[in-house]
């Protein structure tokens, strides 16, 4: 099937390029699935397809370690982070987008610059903060620390989105007797679905996959989130890396993300392009 207006060789080259990109992006995940379905013995050979379909690795992940608990921890932390981030950034965005006040531009820049620091740079200070709040080795400590990278992003995206909503809509709400809170929750919020889904999902993924803070601010196995738990998997001996288990656990924690993205697929696209064109 040739693309209209293009020669056959050009079309072939196009699809070849597409194939390269697909392989490049999908292969690492395929390799994880592939490895997770092989027995430890098979792992020593390079096999491109898991002929044995051994689910032993998956069962083994939950043996002798609180991996189920770790998943619940991750869900708890990510959901709470997303919820608080969206609630805070929605109200902040309303002020930043709709209220004229002195220093608004400066504030927006400050919020953006916070997100530019590498995590390591704030690790020490954040550790002191969390300890003094008594949140060390607590999931709430993780939620607090994760907001340092989710908030700048969600505030910025929602501010931009709110700015795009027509001024007259707000005027109409004011004429109808709505205060700022009613305008935000009953007029703007229902129109912001795509933006909320997109930013919420990206914040969720960031919190779900976060490693450094989770490693530093938790101590006991029962408080660990999934990325740290996977990194701490140990084999039968000190010299064995339980590769199959690690891959199985990785697949287990990646699948929910993929499902989420697929469920919200259409809304994400409209959210990412919101404001690009009018309407």
């Amino acid at each position, binding site marked *: 099937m040739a693309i209209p207006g293009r020669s056959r060789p050009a079309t072939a080259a196009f699809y070849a390029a597409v194939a390269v990109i697909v392989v490049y992006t999908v292969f690492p995940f395929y390799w994880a699935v592939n490895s997770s379905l092989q027995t430890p013995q098979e792992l020593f050979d390079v096999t491109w397809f898991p002929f044995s379909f051994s689910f032993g690795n998956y069962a083994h992940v939950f043996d002798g370690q609180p991996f189920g608990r770790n998943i619940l921890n991750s869900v708890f932390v990510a959901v709470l982070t997303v919820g608080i981030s969206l609630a805070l950034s929605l109200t902040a965005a309303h002020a930043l987008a709709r209220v004229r006040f002195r220093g608004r531009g400066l504030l927006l820049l400050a919020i953006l610059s916070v997100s530019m620091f590498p995590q390591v740079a704030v690790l020490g200070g954040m550790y002191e903060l969390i300890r003094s709040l008594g949140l060390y080795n607590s999931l709430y400590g993780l939620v607090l620390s994760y907001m340092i990278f989710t908030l700048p992003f969600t505030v910025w995206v929602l501010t931009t989105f709110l700015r795009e909503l027509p001024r007259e809509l707000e005027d109409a709400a*004011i*004429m*109808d007797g709505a205060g700022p809170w*009613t305008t935000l929750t009953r007029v703007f919020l229902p129109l912001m679905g795509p933006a909320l889904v997109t930013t919420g999902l990206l914040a969720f993924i960031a919190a779900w996959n976060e490693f450094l803070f989770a490693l530093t601010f938790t101590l006991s196995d029962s408080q660990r989130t999934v990325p740290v738990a996977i990194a701490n998997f140990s084999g039968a001996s000190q010299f064995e890396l339980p590769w199959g288990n690690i891959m199985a656990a990785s697949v287990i924690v990646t699948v929910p993300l993929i499902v989420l993205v697929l469920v919200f697929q259409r809304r994400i696209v409209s959210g990412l392009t919101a404001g690009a064109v009018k309407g």
Partner: protein
Amino acid sequence: MAGIVFDRVSKRFGTAEVIRNVDLDIAPGSFTVFVGPSGCGKSTLLRLIAGLEDITAGTLLIEGCPVNDVAPAKRGVAMVFQSYALYPHMSVYQNMAFGLSLAKTDRRETDRRVREAARILQMDHLLERKPKDLSGGQRQRVAIGRAITREPKVFLFDEPLSNLDAALRVQMRLEIAKLHRALGATMVYVTHDQVEAMTLAEQIVVLNAGAVEQVGAPLELYHRPQNRFVAGFIGSPQMNFLPGTLAAAGADGVAVALAGLASPVPAAVAPDGQAAGAAVSLGIRPEHIVVGDGVAAAGPHGRIALVERLGSDTLLHVATQAGHLVVAAGAATKARVGDTIRLGLPADACHVFAADGRALARRGATEA
């Protein structure tokens, strides 16, 4: 019904003064139209009434009460926006009921008012639709319906028809006029469209650079503009202006000497203190210039530079010795580009403006 009074109202945005010392009286139950060029402050004036902008100085009274510090929703006014500003996620019914539900109006009363508004605007069948499923005209109707349900004392319209196509605009114009008769409420309407202003208004307010130039009935503005700005703004095509000097000034009229004309052109206006020799401009509307054989040889003449045939009328652009003139010559004219044409300027159709733009009072100009 409520009257609106502006008492020396000013509005500044930062250092820019967009409304300067406006004094204005809007009678209860009247239909008032604000017109003016873009940026003249007409929309800002409307938003001051609505309460969407704060008043910098002066007092605004609605029904005799100062409302400078009264919240928009408590002023008893409703506004129809240019972009309609319907809530996209709500049905037509919800759009119209939103204000009432915020005001905690009884559910049955809300329902009655929404259905009544829908009946008046003949959109009963649209109540369950979302705005995106409506045509432009229907959206406009919903926006008006949303205003009606609040049963306001004052309706404000901010260029409500400018997003509609020409045919629909005429139809909605008639409906708004009908609505005004039916409801009897005070209506204030902003437009840049002269036809809308002339046909809808009982009173037109001409604004320029944040100040009121003239207030009056449509035909009064047409026949007796108080200054050159109003004369040029009201009427389409625009009034012609020719520079000249006052050759004679007497109690029964003046005469204006124009460049290239042997004898001064008489005009039926009072001298108003202007003496012979003063620089003035002579104004005459295209539709009042006389074309044809009966015209005295003393009038201006010139070559036709351009002919615009509008069907109902024909506009001739004539380069005369006294200056460029646009002439409405009637649909039947055979005039063509390049023809030389002789024009007559009837004394009782001439306006004369002093150097500062002020109009000299016309004598015996009819109102009709």
